């Protein structure tokens, strides 16, 4: 008996042709308004507004205690809202218990049922939804192949490596082709190499199945690799939201600038404004130009220059800044140089290794510069 109708409405249609190519946007739109989660006087989530587009891959990025896991738990229904509302495709969900929300979820500890095989683990959501065995077995086999786990179907979780277990967890989360997939720092327990390869797999998976992915992490490079948009969180609030390029190149605060990627934050005084361009003088006395969308009238500003954008130059370049090398490290594909300016500011430089490029010595006197497109004035 076909029990597809018994499946919760939010899950994708089981009999839809299995997607292998173009993305069908089956994901849900998520709208959060004024979401609050309070523990006494402490607000883990402090009046959060967020709109997630259907089929988007959005990352909640922030240090521990920023509220990103709280937000995910509220979305999943493990905790109750203390204020505000969450709507999925326009329908409020605060009255819907977790097991009826129709999401898929991946946990940091994988959370695979140790008393079931890989196939049984992945089949679990389908059994819970009451789908018949034939359809279940087909879909499970398909999903296991998608995650390259076909030959491990009859093993138990304890017989598999961390990376394989995580793939099983992901398979279980997507087997019902849910409209929303939640991921709570799923890669934190894996070593770096494995993490990087699964990141790319997740990106491809997202393109293939088209669900809305909500990804929580504290690792900014993960966020940059996989997301359509990143929501940077701090102290229970979203401090900036945008595409990876926007977040990385045009952060709106010191916090975002230093949390995402390495940064050099340079104090400077505005000499002249000409539309979008500014003329600035740094503390060491060197003059350089910058672009800024900030229209503020402040005279003292902070300028962000990423380490990879600072170049070594000749002493006679117009906006050259002289500095003394404090340390120079060979890190394989990059050379990492720390230099101190005469005014006491510390600059981090990163330069790709290249033929004929020598590592400066400690104490050496160098000159650095950056172009107006290489720096960004923080609001």
């Amino acid at each position, binding site marked *: 008996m076909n029990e597809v109708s018994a499946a919760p409405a939010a899950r994708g249609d089981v009999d839809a042709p299995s997607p292998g190519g173009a993305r069908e946007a089956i994901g849900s739109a998520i709208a959060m308004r004024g979401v609050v989660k309070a523990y006494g006087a402490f607000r883990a989530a402090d009046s959060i507004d967020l709109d997630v587009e259907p089929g988007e891959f959005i990352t909640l990025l922030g240090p521990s205690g920023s509220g990103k896991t709280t937000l995910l738990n509220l979305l999943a229904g493990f905790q109750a809202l203390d204020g505000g509302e969450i709507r999925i495709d326009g329908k409020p969900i605060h009255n819907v218990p977790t097991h009826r929300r129709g999401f898929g979820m991946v946990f940091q500890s994988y*959370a695979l*049922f140790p008393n079931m095989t890989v196939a049984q683990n992945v089949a*679990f959501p389908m059994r819970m939804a009451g789908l018949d065995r034939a359809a279940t077995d087909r879909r499970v086999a398909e999903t296991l192949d998608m995650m390259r786990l076909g030959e491990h179907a009859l093993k138990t979780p304890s017989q598999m490596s961390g990376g394989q277990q995580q793939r099983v967890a992901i398979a279980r989360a997507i087997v019902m082709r849910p409209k929303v997939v939640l991921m709570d720092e799923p890669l934190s327990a894996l070593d770096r190499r494995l993490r990087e390869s699964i990141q790319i797999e997740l990106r491809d998976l997202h393109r293939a199945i088209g669900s809305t992915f909500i990804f929580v992490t504290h690792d900014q490079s993960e966020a940059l690799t996989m997301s359509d948009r990143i929501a940077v969180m701090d102290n229970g609030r979203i401090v900036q939201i945008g595409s990876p390029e926007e977040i990385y190149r045009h952060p709106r605060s010191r916090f975002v600038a230093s949390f995402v990627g390495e940064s050099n934050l340079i104090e400077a005084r505005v000499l002249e404004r000409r539309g979008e361009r500014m003329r600035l003088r740094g503390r060491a006395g060197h003059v350089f130009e910058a672009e800024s969308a900030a229209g503020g009238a402040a005279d003292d500003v902070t300028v962000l220059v990423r380490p990879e954008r600072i170049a070594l130059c000749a002493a006679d370049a117009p906006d050259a800044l002289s500095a003394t090398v404090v340390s120079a490290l060979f890190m394989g594909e990059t050379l990492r140089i720390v230099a101190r300016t005469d005014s006491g500011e510390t600059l981090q430089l990163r330069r790709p290794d290249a033929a004929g490029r020598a590592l400066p010595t400690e104490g050496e006197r160098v000159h650095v510069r950056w172009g107006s497109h290489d720096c960004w004035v923080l609001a």
Partner: protein
Amino acid sequence: MGPALLLAPALVFLAVAYLLPLIDLARISAAGAPWWAHFERVFSVPLYWESLLRTMGVALTVAALCAAFGYPTALLIHRTRGVTRVMIATAIILPYFIAVLIRTYAWMVLLGRNGPINKSAIWLGFYEQPMALLFNRGAVLLGMTAVLLPLMVLSIYSSLSRLDQSLVRAALASGAGPLAVFWRVLLPLTAPGVGAGFLLVFVSALGFFITPTLLGGPADQMFAMHITQQAESITGEGFLQALAVVLLVITLVVVGVAGKLMGFEFIWGGGRLAEVAPAPARARARTQSGVAAAGADLLGWPALRVLGRLPGGWGAWTVRLMAGFVIGVLILPILVVIVISFSSASYLTFPPPGWSLRWYEKFFSDPDWMAAFRNSLVIAAMSACIAVALGASAAVGIVRGELRYKSALMLLLVSPMIVPPVVLGLSLYGLFLKLGLVGTHVGLAAAHAIGGVPIVVVIVAAALQGVDRRLEQSAAVHGAAPFTVFRTVTLPAIAPGLAAAVFFAFLHSFDELVLSLFLSSPRLRTLPLRLWADVNYQLNPVLAVVSALEVAMVIVGVALARPIFGRSRAAH
């Protein structure tokens, strides 16, 4: 070899005081002509044979009841946090420290003709005459379940708490309603805990005689009672010994089968010693056969889904109600007894007609009671010393020593826990007669220590395994000799465990009744013995006073120990 030598004192003690008497017991039981003569009598005379079956039936029922009610209680402890959790856990565990005799006495009060249950039923109009709630099978089952519940709750709770918490969330997120989560995730993964608890309760219930004697009627004769009753007229011919051996063998067989199936660690509720961390669940994944799968599809899954449509609160409320009932069952008798101790009436009635301290005065001014009290204190103190000295060194030896057959040694050290006390008592009587130890403080202290040593070994071994070896290693690397390392690093780390071991060994001896029944004399009476005599013949409120004082003693002891426990628990 070093630390392993520390096992010697305990092993010698147990060999002489415990193993030899048991072997002697077996020898005497087989001294008939032919050697199976006594055993044949046990199995052919209906009186004994039927009581054996009855005992096993009762033990099974009690274990099943404990499992059914213990699981929701363990769940409730697991799901609550903070102060609530501490209070609920205390309400369950505290009664377990109070002597079986006293808790059973409390049930006699509760279920008595003038007790609160009858009184409130009449007051509420359920019936007009007080019902005979005592001296029947129901009272026995209720009393035994109440006494053994904490054991089951602890066993299930430790299994629950070792579960990966995110498994429940993963199941919820996969669409499993609360009931499905329980049936498909919680129950299979905590089955070892339930099984261990079931077995511990069953084995304990087999040897029970205090509760059935006090709460049961003539038709509720349990097997162990034959041994105590006929011990009054002890004959050396071997029939009594045969009864004891039958009980012992049945116990050992059950424990043996259970140990083979789930590992003998269930006896001391612990993990393996110095081996790889235990596998998270012994339940192995099974792919269902065709028939089983069809059955599941036809009945199981639809049933689960129908039940899953029940409003979400039902499951939570069922848990709360059952657990609340359990807490009431455990706490109520004790509260009633404490109230009665302040009663002005000279017979047992609830509520008391008036308040008075006369019974406290009577207790403290009665030379017999005071003598019994002093005897118990002295013997308990001596017994605790013996048990801790032997048990702690044995624990160090077994955890830190380089040995083979650690599991077998641990099993030996812990085995007195599962041997029915009546069997031990009978076996020791002969030895004590020969050595002239009957009715002596030292003799009783040593006998109690046989049961105290396993308690100490389990607690101290657990404490030792919680010590970070790297602390000791770093002390050694920086120049500390082995004994100094032990003194400055290990000892402070296990101090809470040691303190707990002392407390429990003391309590074990203070509450001990069965061995004392066999091994004391009219001149040397302990408090439990005096209680036992009065419960059987007098039943006045002084018993309530003794009970209240014991409860106070336990509460004070646990309260003093709580900060220590809290710290050691936080360390996990």
